[in-house]
């Protein structure tokens, strides 16, 4: 593995996660949920890669496998030239400091028995990044200010805050240990739009200030499109298309991307668009359809799509899609 300047900060290679389904008295493995089924992408330092897809497409599992919060079944995750998937516990901890995550539910992801100061300062203590308690406190105060909260809040408990404020606390916790990569897993999805805009702007400011790299996982296409430089679209455990965000919106190559984009309501009654309404539901990831996973719902499907899974191929510079008959 060369470590030249061109090496991406994060490389995910053929990542697979199959969750076993156990049943019966002996809890034998009966089947597998193929949550992530061969995902590969690169992430450059300082960029934001958005990952979109509907429930069950494997976007959150991908994020968690990168941090090894869930152990991947196979595949590799390279972070700054180190293969994260083979690291032992101690080495993983050192890498984990540089890769942080912000979760969706600001109500469930903060320990209700800890003060805000203890929550934010925990990482500093674990990674021995502060010499003494005073230094931890100073750093927490500064972090609270960075995310737009009063330093006085450090002695309070999470229940005293609104959803938007809690998400700011979650961001301060992630930033405390000076990470390089932040995985935002539906980080603004639970927030009301006026608060959501505040948090999106904050994330953009922090990226500038600390040169952060984001993997921004969300189901809301408008939000992902807004914040990301590039966007990956997932469907049933696979990436079906990756492109610069503007290109993905203006010239989608994969029919699933096209349908997904056309389904997003535009907040302007004068905009009338042709909507492609997909029939049926997303199939089960236990026995996904053969060949291209999207073929049963695709208007363009041919015989080849049922038998042969299309590989991701570059159709325009930086624009790849996995489709036998792309636009």
């Amino acid at each position: 593995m060369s470590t030249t300047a061109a090496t991406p900060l994060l490389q995910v290679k053929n990542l697979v996660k199959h969750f076993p389904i156990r049943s019966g008295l002996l809890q034998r493995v009966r089947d597998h949920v193929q949550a992530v089924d061969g995902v590969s992408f690169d992430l450059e330092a300082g960029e934001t890669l958005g990952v979109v897809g509907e429930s069950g497409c494997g976007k959150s599992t991908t994020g968690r496998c990168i941090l090894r919060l869930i152990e991947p079944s196979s595949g590799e995750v390279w972070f700054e030239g180190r293969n994260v998937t083979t690291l032992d516990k101690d080495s993983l901890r050192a890498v984990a400091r540089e890769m942080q995550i912000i979760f969706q539910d600001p109500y469930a992801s903060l320990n209700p028995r800890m003060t805000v100061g203890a929550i934010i300062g925990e990482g500093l203590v674990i990674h021995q990044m502060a010499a003494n308690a005073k230094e931890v406190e100073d750093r927490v105060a500064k972090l609270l200010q960075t995310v737009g909260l009063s330093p006085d809040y450090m002695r309070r408990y999470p229940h005293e805050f609104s959803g938007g404020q809690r998400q700011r606390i979650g961001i301060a916790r992630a930033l405390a240990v000076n990470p390089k990569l932040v995985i935002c897993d539906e980080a603004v999805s639970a927030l009301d739009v006026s608060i959501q805009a505040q948090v999106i702007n904050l994330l953009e400011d922090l990226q500038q200030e600390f040169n952060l790299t984001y993997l921004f996982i969300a189901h809301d296409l408008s939000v992902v499109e807004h914040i990301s430089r590039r966007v990956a679209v997932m469907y049933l455990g696979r990436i079906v298309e990756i492109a610069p965000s503007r290109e993905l919106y203006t010239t989608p190559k994969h029919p699933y991307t096209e349908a997904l984009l056309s389904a997003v309501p535009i907040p302007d009654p004068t905009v009338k668009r042709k909507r492609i309404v997909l029939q049926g539901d997303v199939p089960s990831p236990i026995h996904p359809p053969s060949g291209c996973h999207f073929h049963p719902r695709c208007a363009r499907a041919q015989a080849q799509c049922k038998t042969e899974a299309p590989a991701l191929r570059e159709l325009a510079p930086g624009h790849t899609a996995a489709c036998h008959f792309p636009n």
Partner: protein
Amino acid sequence: MPLLDIRGLKTHFKTDDGWLHAVDGVDIAIEAGQTVSVVGESGCGKSVTAKTVMKLIDMPPGKIVAGQVLWQGRDLVPLGSEEMQKIRAKEIAIIFQEPMTSLNPVFTIGEQIAESVRLHEGLSKRAALDRAVEMLKLVNIPTPQRRINDYPHQFSGGMRQRVMIAIALACNPKLVIADEPTTALDVTIQAQILELLQSLKDRFGMAVMLITHAMGVVAEVAQRVVVMYAGKVVEEASVGDLFARPLHPYTQGLIRSIPRLDTAAIHKVRLEAIPGTVPKLIEPAEGCRFAGRCKYVTPSCHAATPPLVEVRPGHKVACILHPAAP
């Protein structure tokens, strides 16, 4: 006369800290066959307004403190539960956000649709089940003959919402209240459900009160829009006027704070967030409730609550920047 005319409605809740003014003087009128969208963020009182119309508020702790809910001219507020039962489902039906919790898990889908028509239309068991099959066909559920014998857990989220719509429409109501009907669904399934609602509305001509937080959904389905903030209506207009000329600073902020797929990707502009958070509604002070977050705030905004006044034909706003048309 409007089909539904909510006048000066106040629904408050008793809490340990005092009375919570969840709905605090709301006026909404819906004409027959019209789609009116009630939009606002968490805690603005939109769902409580809908539940008050249906008298689905637990009292106590809730209390209808003031106002009228005129249904075809008759006030529903003083009605007892037996009389309300006759109006629910048969005249006004409601669809909730979470179809899993609003369906009974121990009855088949067929039984749940049939129950409502047997109760309200006095059909026989056989005829009621036939109606259930017909309703499932109407909401595009494949093989309805077989599926009436299935239980809610055997349906996906989108399919369950179709079943809820089937139950709501089974007695041919004049008004359907849809409380965040697509919020729990994926965007492609949301598109299916919105399309279904629209086609059923075209066919049966019922009025729809669509409660949502999503401005995109509003733009797509509503004819008139009511914007709520902190228990009050702050603006009401036709959908075209509201998006073209939003008058209330809150409505303006709400529209500008949403990233737009059609333009955002092309001109990466910074979102215009509304600073601050929604005020606490426990015994709120006099004055405009948006004043604390408003960039145009003046001292008189805190002095008195601005009334909702018509400033142009069919366009009402509650803001001192926009006095009533002479």
